[in-house]
């Protein structure tokens, strides 16, 4: 197709109606480490692989799952540095909302504003799209929610979703095992099993990250010891 002639500039449509740079950004996401999220009846769990480039890296210093507010957290697949920029911007937006309204920002509003930032970078001159897809997990007055945000700025609410390298296997696995009334504890087990499906090597509390948010509305990243306990239960 004549698409390749239009792939240099983000702000030019190709004849097939695509923005080729965004397609490339999605490819960058697709080759990132697997991450997934599951919405339970009483909470949300998000998890990701934490494959480090060498055993010499201090794994305790790497934290791929971040909280945006006390009741909203996020995980990504794709380019880590781009993720850090988005986390920073989202945290600022959440705080600005709180400063104005003295109320915690609802999950949908924060997702919408983060997606708007990502969209800005697809329609401005001299910038490139973010090379990450985000999974935002939160618990507010509307209950537990899980959103995926793509480099194009589109966002979707999911009951369960996966991104990154192993996405098709992981999604098939989740489709089979997901039920609407699954509880948070079971959802954590399902998340671990899904990660295990495509995991190369021995899974342990040091090479995956899991975070949950339950009815008490506090976003919590599990410690490696807690992850090992769950792994023990799953065996």
């Amino acid at each position, binding site marked *: 197709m004549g698409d390749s002639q239009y792939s240099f500039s983000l702000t030019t449509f190709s004849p097939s109606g695509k923005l080729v740079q965004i397609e490339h950004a999605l490819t960058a996401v697709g080759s990132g480490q697997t991450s997934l999220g599951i919405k339970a009846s009483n909470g949300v769990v998000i998890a990701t692989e934490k494959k480090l480039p060498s055993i010499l890296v201090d794994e305790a210093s790497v934290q791929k799952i971040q909280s945006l507010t006390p009741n909203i957290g996020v995980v990504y697949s794709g380019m880590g540095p781009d993720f850090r920029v988005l986390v920073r911007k989202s945290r600022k937006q959440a705080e600005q909302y709180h*400063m*104005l*309204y*003295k*109320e915690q920002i*609802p999950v*949908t*509003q924060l997702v*919408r504003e983060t997606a708007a930032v990502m969209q800005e970078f697809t329609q401005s001159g001299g910038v490139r799209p973010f090379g990450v897809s985000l999974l935002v997990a939160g618990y507010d007055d509307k209950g537990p929610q899980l959103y995926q945000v793509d480099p194009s700025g589109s966002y979707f609410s999911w009951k369960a979703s996966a991104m990154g390298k192993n996405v098709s296997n992981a999604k098939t696995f989740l489709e089979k095992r997901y039920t609407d009334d699954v509880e948070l504890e079971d959802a954590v087990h399902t998340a671990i099993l899904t990660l295990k499906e495509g995991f190369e090597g021995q899974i342990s509390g040091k090479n995956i990250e899991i975070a949950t948010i339950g009815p008490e509305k506090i976003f919590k990243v599990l410690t490696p010891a807690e992850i090992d306990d769950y792994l023990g239960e799953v065996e």
Partner: protein
Amino acid sequence: MSIFEYNGSALVAMVGKNCFAIASDRRLGVQLQTIATDFQRISKVHDRLFIGLSGLATDAQTLHQRLMFRHKLYQLREERDMKPETFASLVSALLYEKRFGPYFCQPVIAGLSDGDKPFICTTDSIGAKELAKDFVVAGTAGDSLYGACEAMFKPDMEPEELFETLSQALLASVDRDCLSGWGGHIYVVTPTEVKECTLKGRMD
């Protein structure tokens, strides 16, 4: 004459049992000349939230327009009405934006919060919130209103008694203030209905 006394106003809100009432006078003046006797100082933000703006009428109008703008956008984005506490924080933020060139208004905010709990609050012209459990007052008749409300207020009044008490307090106070009066507007709000009445007082 101070800028806050240019147009003249009287505003008061009072808490009852699972209800609240907010009342204002109806005079709009230019210093000592009366221009209108049917001026609306209180407006509805939504069915469970009212705001009254005392002070300079032009600033009250502009501030009101800005607040309605913000609230309508909030309703569209968040698909819900603003809680009274949230609205009060918004009013406070908007007023403080103009810290060194303020709106010459004193707002009175009254609404029903979660669980049908009545919420009233006033702020000064640069956004310092004052939450109260019984009543809040504003306007040129403010000092008289404080006295009248303090004397007549009882906790947990039913809507009918609250209406009587607030009407009497308002009419008594504006009679001691030459810049406010010419009757009154009163809204009594319960979880199920909003009652709006016009009061007849001394027409001077």
